[in-house]
């Protein structure tokens, strides 16, 4: 359970995961925000109008994935670093995960890094394709990580240069 472990459950993730069909069409945001807290920068930052306007600042974000282009601006603006973009259309055998990464060193393009799951376990290897910095949120770089397609839904962090941050 999320409140006990800090890791969202499969059911919680199901609620925020677009349909298979939408996922295969191209990049789309996954908002892993499951607790009502007073916060709305995701809505304010989205230029596509894909995140529904909040009637109460404590509302959970609601994504209209037909409007979402997967641009990733919400990734850098979410104070909780809880938004990711996934792209199954990236290549025939690889998918893309765009994730917020506030650690140093920021990985180099083409670097092979450990791809970590939601519990920080190594799920496999990923290749850094791009590091994107959004205006005003330069200190939350968004790392584009190419991973095998079966890891797209589980990889949510990276470990750069074997540097261990925990344990």
């Amino acid at each position, binding site marked *: 359970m999320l409140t006990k472990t*800090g890791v969202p459950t499969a059911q919680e993730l199901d609620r925020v995961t677009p349909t298979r069909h939408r996922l295969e069409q191209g990049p789309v945001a996954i908002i892993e925000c499951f607790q009502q807290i007073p916060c709305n920068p995701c809505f304010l930052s989205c230029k596509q109008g894909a995140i529904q306007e909040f009637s109460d600042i404590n509302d959970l974000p609601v994504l209209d994935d037909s409007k979402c282009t997967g641009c990733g601006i919400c990734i850098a603006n979410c104070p909780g670093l809880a938004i990711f973009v996934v792209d199954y259309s990236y290549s025939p055998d690889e998918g893309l995960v765009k994730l917020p990464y506030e650690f140093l060193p920021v990985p180099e393009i083409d670097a092979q890094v450990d791809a970590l799951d939601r519990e920080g376990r190594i799920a496999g290897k990923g290749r850094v394709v791009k590091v994107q910095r959004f205006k005003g949120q330069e200190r939350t770089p968004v790392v584009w990580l190419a991973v095998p397609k079966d890891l797209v839904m589980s990889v949510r962090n990276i470990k750069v240069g074997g540097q261990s941050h925990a344990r």
Partner: protein
Amino acid sequence: MLKTDIAIIGAGPAGLNAAISAAAMGAKVLLLDRDDRAGGQLIKQTHKFFGSRELHASLRGIDIASLLLARVREFDNIDFRLGATVLGYYEDGVITAEYRGNFLKIKADRYVIATGASEKILPFPNNDLPGVYGAGAVQTLTNVYGVLPGKRVIMVGSGNIGLIVSYQLLQAGVQVAGIVEAAPGIGGYLVHAAKIRRAGVPIYTSHTIKEAYGDSSVQGAVIWQLDEKWQPLNGTEKDIEADVICIAVGLTPLTELLWQAGCQMKYVPQLGGHVNLRDENLMTSVPGIYVAGDVSGVEEASAAMLEGKLAGLAAAKSLGYSIENYDELWQQAISQLDGLRSGPAGEKIRSGLKMLVR
């Protein structure tokens, strides 16, 4: 004797906002803080804030401090003194302060007390070993002075401070061995928890620290599990090596000046301890003394900023100063505060505040 319209004690998120609001209405403000830097706890907050755009959401605390300080500097009618430690409140309405080796006597027509809160400590065997820190001290060392507290940390407490400081330690290259939380659930925002979980840090809910150990400084701690009645379970002990134990088990308001001034106080555990009664303008039971921020109930900094605005506006108005859109500004701050406190995360605060409104 230093005379002013409004003396504001504490230049954190609440005090800075109180100063700006009162000065914008024309009041002569004396802003005092014992620290050498303005911003209170904001300057240690390297993470992005929640809330709304008006409350600087998505900005980091340290950047919010700079914004507020720049705004304070725009006013000629704010006398801002850092390194000024207020020592006491006297019955004739005078406060005294130590300022750069001098003893100051200050008489203001209104006071805004925005002194913040201090950390609670946790009793356990060997909690006096070097290496046992409060989370605020760890943040000050790491984020303000660039000094690492150690190599490997056990965090005690999973409120927002425990979670955020763990994240900041990871960013600074310190290992976090785990977060120990006595309650059955994580106390802070779950997005913060998810962030450190995916960096590989375990969170031990329903666990507490049994004892720390070490010859001359911390070398580790034994933690154990608690049952549903919060009683430790024999045989569940886990030995965790670490050279730092960081205590983040909550804050308690720094209310000494309020007690000295004779404000009516009440024990409200939801707000961190003894806090003052207040009216909707944040005035205490002593006419002319206002409060803002954690001193009147421990909350997030966003709430402190809004309370500062309210107290600053109300204090200036009570002295006859005015601003064209006073009602609008006041109402805006009130509704933003209500918004922050209205969700499930604000339930504890709401129930605590109910006990306090005069």
